[in-house]
């Protein structure tokens, strides 16, 4: 069983309880405009170019079968639209100016990395988290990985945004201890403008998930100029209010650290979002707390 991942992050402390290893799977069915992980949008390997690292050795020109690399007016130009993701140029680029994001791995490959930190999971109550992208898009790979982790007694968590047929998520649930479910917005307008996902399906899947009985943490990334209004948060939390298995709700402020990745991928970076201030976040948390238990990573449960 093989899957396409972008990274395996060890000592991950923000993706569930304890010390965890987070596996980032490639491919996303939402592709939100503010996403700071644009390298996870596509299911295929992609070439990243960091020109500041280029030493001008020219090796990439000779190994690329598609003519992606060109010298124009003394400048190394990368035609990413021609790239087939074969990785030959990146393999020969020792300065790391060219990097392939996305590699195909077996479940055993990932488990080997996961097992390295197993003693820390046991001590800290940690485990593994599948993130992305949208990990459920690679549900067969995810299922096998989660299954083997469960068999090894490793705590498992999934970060998902819910935009898929529920039957795929259902396949994973027997092997999950925790689901971290993103509701990025409630209003139809926001979905139409900046989220590619199916609003109705995302919201319905959350209710279906709740019916299974697995603990759920719902998160909303708060994006300045998109979903940072009190009404939006109130609408989301009203929808969450009757969930039986909601552990808590979290607001996660947007940050603009993804720009460098957009540049490296040759993608256009939409610069119209801003990071909401601490005061605004606290106000939104208060609004949310009227209906659900709200958790802040620095201040704990704000409902007391």
């Amino acid at each position, binding site marked *: 069983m093989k899957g396409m991942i972008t990274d395996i992050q060890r000592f991950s402390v923000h993706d569930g309880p304890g010390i965890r290893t987070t596996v980032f799977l490639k491919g996303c069915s939402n592709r939100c405009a503010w996403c700071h992980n644009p390298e996870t949008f596509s299911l295929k390997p992609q070439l990243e170019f960091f020109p500041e690292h280029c030493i001008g050795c020219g090796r990439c020109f000779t190994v690329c079968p598609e003519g992606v690399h060109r010298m124009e007016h003394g400048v190394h130009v990368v035609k990413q639209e021609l790239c087939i993701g074969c990785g030959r140029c990146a393999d020969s680029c020792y300065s790391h100016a060219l990097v392939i994001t996305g590699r195909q791995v077996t479940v055993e490959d990932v488990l080997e990395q996961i097992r390295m930190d197993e003693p820390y999971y046991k001590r800290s*109550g940690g485990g593994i988290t599948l993130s992305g992208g949208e990990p459920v898009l690679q549900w067969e790979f995810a299922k096998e990985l989660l299954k083997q982790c469960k068999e090894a007694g490793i705590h498992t968590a999934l970060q998902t945004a819910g935009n898929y047929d529920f039957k795929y998520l259902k396949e994973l649930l027997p092997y999950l201890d925790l689901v971290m479910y993103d509701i990025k917005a409630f209003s139809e307008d926001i979905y139409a403008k900046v989220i590619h996902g199916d609003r109705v399906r995302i919201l319905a899947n959350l209710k279906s998930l709740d019916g299974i009985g697995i603990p759920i943490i719902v998160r909303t990334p708060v994006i300045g100029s998109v979903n940072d209004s009190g009404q939006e948060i109130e609408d989301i939390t009203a929808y969450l209010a009757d969930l039986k298995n909601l552990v808590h709700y979290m607001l996660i402020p947007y940050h603009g650290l993804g720009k460098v990745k957009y540049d490296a991928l040759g993608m256009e970076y939409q610069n119209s979002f801003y990071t909401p201030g601490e005061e605004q976040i606290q106000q939104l948390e208060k609004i949310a707390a009227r209906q659900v238990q709200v958790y802040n990573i620095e201040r704990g449960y704000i409902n007391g």
Partner: protein
Amino acid sequence: MMTPSFNDRIASIKRTKLEFNQEKIDRNGTYDNDDHGWVPFSNPIDYEKVLEEKSGLCTGMEAVSRTFANYLDAHPVYIHPMSAFAGAWAGAAEVGGPWRPEHRMDEIEDECRRYNIQMRGIYAMNHVGGDLKIGLELGWGGLLKKIRYYREFNQPEVTEFYDGEERIVIATQNWIRRHVDYARAQAVTETDSFVRENMREIADMNEWLIENPPRTLREAMQFLTWFQSIDRMYFTNGSLGQLDELLRPFYEADIATGRIQDDDEVVWYTACLLFNDTHYSQIGGENPADGHDIASRMSFLILEGMHRLNIPSNIAFRVHDRLNEELMDRCVEYLFADGTGVCYSCSGGLNKGFMNSGYPEALARMRAKVGCNWTALPGIEYCLQDVTRICLAKPLLLSLEDLMETDGEKSMESLWERYSYHIRRSCEMIKDGLDWHLEYKHLNKPEIVLNLFAHGPIERGVDMSHGGVDIVNMACDATALATAADSFAAIEQFVVQSKRLSWEELYTVLQNNYAGAEEIRLMLKSTPRYGAGNTRADDWAKRISDLFSAIMSEPTKNGHKVLPGIFSHGSVFMHGKNLPATPNGRYDSDPISHSADPDPGFLPGGGTAPTAKANAVAGVTCVSGNSTPLQIDIDSRLAQEMGGREIIKSYIKTFNDMGGTLMNINVVSKQKILEAHKDPDRYPDLVVRVTGYSAFFKSLSAEYRQQVVDRWIAQG
């Protein structure tokens, strides 16, 4: 004036400490070693140096003890008006060196340079742990009586040893007496009522302590203050050992009698002791008989004093299976609050290692953290740790040279065979030096201070380094493990397996320091690194560590044990300057890797992960009782988050479970460390644990600051 609160007093001595630090920098420039507690007095100390007639040097017990006594006689007095204690030291006296010509081991110096051995242990001293319980029970007067008793009882043909020890105790008493006089005079002239009363108390306390053992906690800590001052003056190193247990009986007695009614008073005492010096000490630990934890209220108060003062200090918390959870929790809380704090000495690896070296578990449990990286049995074990190092990278370059000079087969096996030969030669040079040291040290610079606080030297009339104590465990640390391991892996991948380079080409680019060969350098550097887990470099690191450990563990020619460890101290620049370009892509003279840590950015993609780093270090730790420390820098964001403290506690405990020996942690934001590096004056009180020791960040040289910054940058 109103009586200042205990916190006001602590704040006052902290302000003085910062002023002293600025004065030291203004006077001597930046310094990369432990801050210690020395006070920048206005004038140099004018003392008579006594020389041996025969050698014309200040060596041997007679000349050394007379000179040191002269130094103490000339040393100024110092009492901070807000301190609970008298005494401070100006710097180390120039005594006991160089060694007599017939005792110098100069003939192998060229060969040592060839092997990049810059610290041979020979000529060094201290780096052991005294048992301060001896002093607290006897006091200076009792120590004097003990010396006189055993001189009479043993009736040695030559009384030089006892005469010298007696001279030092008397000189110390005289120095204390001058403080008594000074405090009495201050008590008369001082206008501030608190200071006046404080001076009177200090005078009364020390008048008693000149002849008698301490009765109260304050007296006990004043005794320790005198000890650590003269210990530093004689040789700039030292430890207090299991500090909480030393002080617990005094604290409990004071509580029982009502002498102490406010624990904040004890916190003030502790802060004053730490203001006086950064002697190494331990809180928490194991009962020798059954391993239960020995932490007490005193452990918490020591920690509290460290936290409220928040200047460089060297207290270790002992991690073990039955540790005190509340004390550990407080340690991590203050680590998060202050950015630094205690280091974490781990029984998991230390006890197993000491038992592996042939000692019972009870003795392993008794060893305390008494130095930058080392533990020792206080007052029983002579070890000379942290002053002997071999370089693991230079022998690889010598091995390459060997291969190039012969027509024989060039392979990883033949390279390893030559490497093993050169590692053995490095170890032999260290061991011969240690034998030499144990033979002649006492004739040149005896352990004149620590002999008083050890079990045996006074009783036998024999220096601690020459049979005065029962256990002799010499030690040697290896450096540049990652540099060597990554180099072996690079050769294997690109010369042997993919044949992208020939042996000759590799040798040539190294000889030319990669000039015109940047692509080759980057190619070699791209080899999967030590620390990433299950890489060939990880295998090489383990193999190198095992080789060094096995060879170094063999007894010296004179039959002494040597405990191997892996530790570079902060000397990665010093050791790097004498090391040509290495096959891991490192340029000539660049720093070597730090201790057993993987190089920054060791994970694929250039990142790092604390778990990966801890796994790597635990995996290569020499199982000997010496230590292989792990240096970790945690972003302060974790400190602000719920559950962050639990995560760090779990992390430390897991390292202990895996056989780790010592963990040094800093917590600070990347932004702050970068700003402080750019403008050190902006954060004059920022304290960092450089390696085993802590220091004001501002006092470090630019290259040492860069070393700390590089670790943060590598975290991404």
